[in-house]
């Protein structure tokens, strides 16, 4: 009993660690896509943010400065995406591919130029990192059965960005569904002509959607490089931006279901590592690759409409051109 409980706590913690950047990116993608801009550059913005966060916090020994710089940098990338897609009516997928590729190359090129370590940044000192925070009374309560273990073993002991990620979900929900800005953001993703007719700038709304998107991917990148790890490593985003995109689609472009999808994908990842080489009675050895591919397979199945239907915002991917 006790052993099973420890196992569950460990798996739950691993799930949360994996899911944190996914949740941040999924919320980021939600802001962009709800405004009608396809964003497959979550990956690139996160990678760029991770690099800037590690570089700045290495040179300043301040995690918070690293975070700020990463947020600003990722916002800048989002603005570039907006400049191409909103101002110049460029193809949104092409722009996203360009940003991903640009960041995949530039982070290494600049990393070598600045630090000469083959594209890595030097290790960041503890001051420059987001370290686990122990919530109050975590020590004292750890002996209390169930609740104490849950509190000190699971709820406590994560870094600030993990809590921030889980706060971002209700915040996103509130902004998107309970504010005037959110209403307009959703409207501009469904029918920009109507929004324009009401005298509201389509371009400015979409730019603001992208700004929030950039900021959140910056936080995700910071998490990768100076919270989960202690330095930037080339290609450290490793496709997580795409998984987050899949999770957002899996959550049907809604915050809470998207978070649940992120947690599910995180759980799959945590389980995949634990199941390596384990023989499940009746099935035999489960191929790890199958579990790793499951998020993608599930997303395709969902998109195909076999398990419920996931419908994108109506005006997504279409540049808005005023009728003359």
């Amino acid at each position, binding site marked *: 009993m006790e052993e099973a409980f420890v196992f569950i706590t460990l798996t739950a913690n691993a799930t949360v660690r994996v899911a944190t950047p996914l949740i941040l990116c999924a919320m980021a993608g939600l802001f962009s896509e709800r405004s009608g801009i396809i964003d497959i550059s979550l990956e690139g913005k996160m990678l760029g943010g991770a690099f800037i966060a590690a570089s700045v916090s290495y040179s300043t020994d301040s995690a918070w400065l690293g975070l700020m710089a990463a947020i600003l940098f990722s916002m800048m990338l989002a603005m570039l995406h907006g*400049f191409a897609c909103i101002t110049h009516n460029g*193809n*949104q997928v092409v722009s996203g591919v360009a940003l991903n590729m*640009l*960041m995949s190359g*530039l982070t290494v*090129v600049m990393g*070598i130029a600045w630090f000469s370590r083959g594209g890595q940044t030097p290790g960041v000192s503890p001051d420059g990192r987001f370290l686990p925070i122990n919530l109050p009374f975590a020590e004292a309560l750890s002996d209390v059965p169930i609740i104490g273990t849950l509190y000190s073993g699971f709820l406590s002991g994560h870094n600030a960005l993990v809590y921030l990620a889980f706060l971002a979900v209700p915040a996103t929900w509130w902004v998107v569904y309970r504010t005037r800005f959110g209403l307009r953001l959703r409207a501009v993703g469904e029918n920009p002509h109507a929004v324009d007719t009401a005298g509201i700038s389509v371009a400015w709304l979409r730019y603001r959607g992208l700004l929030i998107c950039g900021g959140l991917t910056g936080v995700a990148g910071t998490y990768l490089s100076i919270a989960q790890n202690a330095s930037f490593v080339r290609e450290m985003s490793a*496709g997580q931006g795409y998984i987050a995109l899949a999770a957002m689609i899996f959550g049907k472009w809604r915050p809470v279901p998207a978070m649940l999808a992120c947690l599910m994908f995180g759980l799959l990842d945590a389980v995949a590592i634990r199941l390596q080489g384990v023989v499940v009675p009746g099935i035999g050895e489960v191929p790890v690759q199958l579990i790793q591919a499951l998020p993608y397979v599930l*997303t395709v199945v969902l998109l195909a409409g076999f398990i419920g239907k996931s419908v994108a915002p109506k005006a997504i991917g279409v540049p808005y051109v005023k009728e003359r």
Partner: protein
Amino acid sequence: MSSSPTKPLPRWIDVGLVPILNIVIALLVSGLIIFIIGEDPWDAVQIMAYGALGFDEGIGFTLYYMTNFIFTGLAVAIAFHTGLFNIGGEGQAYIGGLGVGLCLLVLDTALPIWILMPLCILVSGMFGAAWAAIPAYLQAYRGSHIVITTIMFNFIASALMVYLMVNWLIKPGQMSPQSVTFADQSHLPFMSEVFAWFGMEIAQTPLNITVFWALFCCIALWAFIWRTKWGFETRAVGHNEPAAVYGGVDPKRTIMVAMLISGGLAGFVGLNEIMGVHHKLLLNFQLGYGFTGIAVALMGRNHPFGIILASLLFGILYQGGAELAFEMPKITREMVVTIQGLVILFSGALAYMSVPWVSKVYNILAADKPVPAEGEA
């Protein structure tokens, strides 16, 4: 962009000058980055040009890269003509290579090369097409967004390949996941061997006769797009789907046809890599070619002839970039990826950024003359 009465741009500016201008901007920004990291951009250009074109080994590598880029560039282009974005060239190339590998693992000694060659062309194309068929079907008949599904299929292909290589196809008693090497007689001839038949000696490079197949595919695709009924339907659906439907075109079938061709073309990368170069199955032989295909197609304006030129340029960038990494310690292969990103950005996403300016300049210049003459700007 402005609604003031302006003359429409002549064709040579639209298809000639503007794309070149975009590439020039991309290369200037790349030069700026090289300058910022403390190297001389002009030196870099010279090293790259010599490394890619200055001697026979460099040329061989350049043309070998070009071969792969032609396949993936054509794959992206045919999908673009139908108004679709095939971002899954990476996965289709991977699975195409898997097809060739499986075929040769079984038949490498059983059949003579002149049967294996067409067979492997067919198999690589069919495997690639099959991998594109599912996203295509979901787009055409279930309305799922093909960009997302093809991205997902890239990752699924990657997981599948790791699983197959590690568990089934790995050469026994070996650590790295590679299959056994195919029998010598099943290898496609390298160009150095072809030249040797005629008594000429050139350096041995990965360049093999697949390059001819790539050029043939360019001609064939040109003929398909502009000289057949199906190609016409493809362009009709891409330009104006309701009009195409009104004209009696079935867009669903058209999407399937275009995507199957697209996947097949991407699958030929596997032919070049597995049958032509590595002669065994291995992981990640396709890495980056699928995505570069997007840049190639954008730069070549989705026209097979443009794609040959763009592929050559990217071949030069790849090979020249490798030489550059030798010569300049601060520059690595990632510089090429960066340049690629910039090319996609400026000649893809920001393709029309320069149009208002060009249009303004053209109108000023053309206003003085009664007939727009050639040669200005």
